[in-house]
């Protein structure tokens, strides 16, 4: 039992990356845009977050660098990268009305390519590797709650022992939930995703909503990539370490039935599955086979989700379809 609690507590770091990826994609999909390029956008967020933090430090010097500002720069850098990727996606699908599935796959190829390219280019340029100094690394890992809260039995470490990005992710999820359910703009956005023709007839600027949702959603997903490189990967760029995180996020969106609040515990669950082989050891069971467990679980989840045809848990009705006003 203690092992399970320790596992969940340790999963928070990995889960945070998934959480941002999932929440961003929920925002995008709510507008009716199915962006399968989350993998590419998280890659881009990962490298540009690291590079902005690294450049900031190079600019002000190791002693003058402040952790908080470095984090801010990393967030901004990754968010901007995701926004640009979202803009490309929105331009091709909303304005040029290309197939969303293939555009998403192209975004995956493009994004991973850009990230690997920038990573290798920076490595060549700086000699050795791209990273940040130790005290900045610490500030990325910092835990904000005092120690006595973490000593609460069982749940203390799970709730209070996470890096600050974790709480930021929860905040974003709650804000997004409130946006969807409590504001007029959120209602409009959902209308665009459910039935663009109706929204258009009601005078909602469908193009603007889809563009903004895809860009901001892409930005949030990209922050997830940054969180991964700055926490789990230890502030260095390891090619391929981010592989699969973006795709798991896309799967999580289905698992969470397009609800941001479900994204919080959903990502905790999948974060736990990802690192389970390190914490709960099954004797004589080969580790490499153990590592594919999260993917098997994802498939099982996908099948179960599709078997239960619950009306409440459906994707936005127009997900993945483009809208052209003069077409019926």
């Amino acid at each position: 039992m203690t092992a399970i609690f320790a596992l969940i507590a340790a999963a928070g770091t990995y889960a945070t990356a998934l959480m941002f990826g999932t929440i961003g994609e929920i925002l995008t999909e709510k507008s009716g845009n199915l962006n399968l390029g989350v993998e590419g956008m998280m890659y881009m967020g990962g490298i540009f977050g690291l590079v902005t933090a690294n450049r900031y430090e190079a600019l002000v010097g190791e002693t003058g660098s402040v952790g908080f500002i470095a984090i801010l720069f990393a967030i901004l850098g990754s968010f901007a990268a995701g926004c640009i990727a979202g803009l490309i996606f929105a331009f091709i699908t909303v304005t040029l009305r290309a197939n969303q599935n293939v555009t998403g796959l192209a975004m995956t190829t493009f994004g991973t390519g850009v990230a690997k390219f920038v990573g290798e280019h920076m490595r060549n340029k700086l000699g050795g590797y791209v990273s940040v100094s130790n005290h900045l690394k610490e500030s990325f890992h910092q835990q904000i709650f005092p120690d006595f809260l973490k000593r609460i039995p069982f749940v203390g470490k799970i709730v209070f022992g996470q890096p600050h990005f974790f709480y930021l992710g929860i905040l974003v999820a709650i804000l997004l939930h409130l946006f969807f359910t409590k504001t007029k703009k959120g209602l409009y956005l959902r209308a665009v995703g459910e039935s663009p023709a109706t929204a258009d007839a009601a005078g909602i600027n469908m193009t603007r909503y889809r563009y903004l949702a895809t860009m901001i959603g892409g930005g949030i997903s990209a922050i997830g990539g940054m969180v991964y490189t700055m926490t789990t990967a230890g502030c260095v760029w390891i090619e391929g370490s981010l592989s699969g995180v973006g795709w798991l996020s896309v799967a999580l969106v289905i698992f969470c039935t397009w609800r941001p609040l479900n994204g919080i515990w959903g990502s905790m669950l999948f974060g736990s599955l990802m690192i389970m082989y390190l914490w709960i050891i099954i004797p004589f069971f080969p580790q490499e086979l153990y590592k594919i467990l999260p993917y098997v679980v994802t498939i099982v989840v996908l099948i179960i989700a599709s078997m239960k045809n619950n009306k409440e848990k459906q994707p936005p009705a127009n997900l993945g379809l483009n809208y052209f006003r003069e077409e019926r």
Partner: protein
Amino acid sequence: MSDKAKKNKTPFIRLSKKSESMLDPRKAVAIRISSVVVALILGSIPILLTGVNPVKAYGIIVQGSLGNKIYLQQTIKKMIPLLCCALAIGPCFKMRFWNIGAEGQLTAGAIACSAIAIWFGKSSMPSILILSLMFIFAIVAGGIWGFIPGYFKAKYNTNETLFTLMMNYIAIGIAKWLQGGPWEGRKGTQIIPIFDRKTFLPNVLGVHCGWIIVLLIVIIMHYYMTRTKHGFEVAVIGDSENTARYAGMNVGWIMMRTMFLSGAICGIAGFVVVAGANHTLNDVVADGNGFTAITVSWLSQLNSYVMILISALLAIISKGSKTLNQRVGVPASVAEIVSGILLFCMLGCEFFINYEIKFRWSRDKDAKKSASTAEQAKNGSTDGNRSSIPANTSKEAE
């Protein structure tokens, strides 16, 4: 004054969908080719950032992939599995079934034929028998790997994109386990020893005969997609599933059948890679070909013959970018960026083929033109008009 207000009400840019008769195939080809050119120009931006002259870089890419016999052979070796996977993906995409599991299906095929090679390689069986056994097992394993997501899509409408993708990770995970566990050669090496010579595909013209197999598949697939009932059914489902159902087609069965076929062809790709090139099994046997094949398929508009050209183009970029990396230090991942941009441009350019863009001023011109033709018609028809009118009506009749 009121006239001016009216004018402002017409939108600055107006879009309309072109009808079938307005589509000009030559213009479409021209637009597609120019989109490839635009993509190559955009692709030179990252090369410029590294301080290398893009023209020179593209020169190195071409030289490094086609420059001499060895390079050319390597490029063709790269191209074979890529083309094979693209052929496999073709019918799925035609059916709007987003199979991105070619990577896993290839790996599954590779695992199955490696099993045969390991179990029977040392036995007294003749080479041809072992090779055909490997071939059959690769087909079955790849097919099953494709069939599973197809089954669930047909039965429960399970999201096939994620399903096929997760199947990739599972196949690669199994390959990793075999590599470091049961089939490992010397303990701790994580390498499966090279298979017996009997399991090697013979060379034809300097490259293993996989290229002949793949070219045969090109012809078969083109025939299958354009000349058979199966191919027609796939195309109908792609256009509208409801129409297919209304016409009495068993959509679920067709989906499963097509996915088995697709997986089987990917399995053949796995067989070709193992028996022809690698002669061993590892977890990177697919080497990203399954993903790049998506680009190939879509760029060639799912046409088998065009796929040869496009896979050659992407193989050249991929092989050439490695040379580029060795010579001037541009990261080899530039190949991925260029192929991503290629795909973006190709997807975007369809818009200019299918839609007509009318600007406000061109609308005015149209109005004037129609007014003048109307006047001409009033003044008594000339020869030119007489011939043009029946032409128009015949088009409408069509």
